[in-house]
Each structure stands twice: as structure tokens, then as C-alpha cells.
């Protein structure tokens, strides 16, 4: 084939490349979006505690000098139930500092649920108006944020945390933040 005839194959090759690109895109989960808030400080907020709990949650709680995990949960959220044992182990066995954001929930439902499922959180803010969740760019529950000692958001995980996520991503990240 002459080089000129090869030129006619160019559109076919371009089409093939595009098809491969789109095919790869089809396999991706469109809900896994990068957070716009990575490396930004946590928003300014002050949330009341759940009824019967001593502490709510505010901006200063998340800039306490040690890295923390902020988990967005709700009593109605089924994946949160699957995630809860993972969070409890993280808190009890690894001593990870965890805070909770009760999202789009009735506070009394959250209290009842935590009483049976267990509470891994040092404190929980009741976001009944969903406004703080919007400030964090939350799409839905569950979501987890890793926040460094200076109160900057360093990582966001959408969906329930699995033991693999914890082993491969969460613990190494927390360790590297602690070392600083």
C-alpha cells in the first residue's frame, strides 16, 4: 500500500480510538466524582448535638491537631448500616478520631439507630436543614472525609467504606497525615 492510501485509513483509526475511549468510560461509575474541596479548609459551621448527646459539631472540632475521619450518615441509609461495623472497628481497634454528620434525618431516629448499631463517633452534628452537608459538597449518605490536623479536607470517599478501602487508602493516608 502506498503512503497515500494509508492516509485513507486515518478516519477509521480515529474512530477506533474514540470507540475505545468511550468504551472505557462506560465502565466507570458516574457517581464517583472528585470533590471540589480537596485541600480546602472545612467550611465554617456550628451544629447542635443529637438529643441526649453532650457535644455537637463545629469547625474547631475538625481542626484539633490530629487527622480525623468525618462520616456523613443517616438512620434511613442502608449502606450506612453495612458500613457501621467497619467504622466501629476503625474507632476501637485503630483509635481513629471520628466525627459524625447526621444528614437529612430526624434526630430521634438517629439516636435510636445509634443505640442499636453502636456509635463510633466522638461527637455528632445534627444537620437537620442539610445546609452544612451542602457546604461539604455532599451528594448523599454515606460519604467519608479525611481531614488533617489543620482542618483541611484531604480526601473524600463516596459510598460505604469497605475493609479493603480502610486497609488500602484510609489507614495509610491517616498515618501519613499523622507523621507530619
Amino acid at each position, binding site marked *: 500500500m502506498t503512503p497515500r492510501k494509508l492516509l485513507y485509513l486515518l478516519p477509521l483509526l480515529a474512530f477506533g480510538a474514540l470507540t475505545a475511549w468511550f468504551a472505557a468510560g462506560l465502565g466507570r461509575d*458516574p*457517581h464517583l*466524582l*472528585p*470533590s*471540589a*474541596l480537596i485541600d480546602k479548609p472545612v467550611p465554617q459551621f456550628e451544629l447542635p448535638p443529637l438529643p441526649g448527646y453532650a457535644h455537637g459539631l463545629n469547625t474547631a472540632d475538625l481542626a484539633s491537631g490530629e487527622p480525623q475521619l468525618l462520616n456523613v450518615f443517616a438512620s434511613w441509609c442502608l449502606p450506612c448500616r453495612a458500613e457501621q461495623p467497619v467504622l466501629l472497628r476503625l474507632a476501637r481497634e485503630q483509635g481513629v478520631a471520628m466525627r459524625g454528620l447526621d444528614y*437529612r434525618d430526624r434526630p430521634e431516629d438517629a439516636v435510636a439507630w445509634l443505640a442499636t448499631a453502636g456509635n463510633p463517633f466522638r461527637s455528632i452534628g445534627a444537620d437537620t436543614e*442539610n*445546609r452544612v452537608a*451542602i*457546604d*461539604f*459538597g455532599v*451528594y*448523599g449518605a454515606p460519604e467519608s472525609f479525611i481531614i488533617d490536623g489543620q482542618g483541611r479536607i484531604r480526601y473524600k470517599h463516596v459510598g460505604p467504606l469497605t475493609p479493603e478501602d480502610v486497609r488500602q487508602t484510609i489507614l495509610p493516608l491517616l498515618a501519613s497525615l499523622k507523621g507530619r
Partner: protein
Amino acid sequence: MNARLLPALAVLIWSLPALAVLPGEMLSDPALEARAREISQDLRCLVCQNQSIDDSNAPLARDLRLLVRERLKAGDSDQAVVDYVSARYGDFARLKPPFQPNTWLLWLGPLAVALAGAATVAWRLRRRTGAAAPAPPPLSAEESARLARLLDGQE
């Protein structure tokens, strides 16, 4: 037309623009509400992804609609409201992506492809007309003489 049918038809026509926005969410100031509607139509519902928050019944879309109206009431410009949302949810929240370095390909890509196509067509056409009409050979003496006679009207 039937006089009884007319009101029914009017109701039908007027019911068309009603989407997901509930009456309780609307602002009392019609000008502000119109701006809110316009902004909402350009903001993506992050949960359903291919609907605007103006279209969507998702709870997050409702919260964002209320937020848009709250920001407008607080005196924000349209751009400030859109920036407020995209600062939290990223440019993905904007159904009309901004023109910036990482979207140049998106905005200019179709134009570049069209220009490349036009250039290719123009180039090929020029070459083909050049090849199809080579310079004619000069006239022989006999032909020149005949042409001269024709022009003089002698033939």
C-alpha cells in the same frame, strides 16, 4: 370553538411550565423568582446528574433550589450564586461548563474539526480543478486564421 372547551385548554397550556418547583418554594418577588428559575435550569442535580435542579424531584435538588433563592434574596448576583454552588460541588454542577483551559477542547473541539474538514475539502477541490483543466495547447496557424475569420463574421 366550544366555549366550555376553551377554559380547559387554557388550563392545559398554563400547566406546561410547572415542573418540580413547588409553590411553597417560590419567591414572592416575580423578578427574583424568574432569576432563580433561570439559574436553576443551568445547575445540575448532582444525584440524578442529567436533570437540572429545576427539573428534578430529588431532595438534594430541592435543597439547592431553596439555597439559590436564599442567596438571591441576600442580594447575590446570578454569577455569585452559580459560583457558590460550583465552589462546593465543582464545575460538574454547571450544566453549561465554563470556558477555561481544561474545557478548551470541549468548546473549541467541534470548531477545530469543522475547520479541518473545510480545509481538507478546499485543498482537494483546488487540486482537482487544477488537474482537470491543464493549460490548452497553443492554437495552430490554421486555427488562428479560422478564428480571425469567425471574428470578422466571414464564416
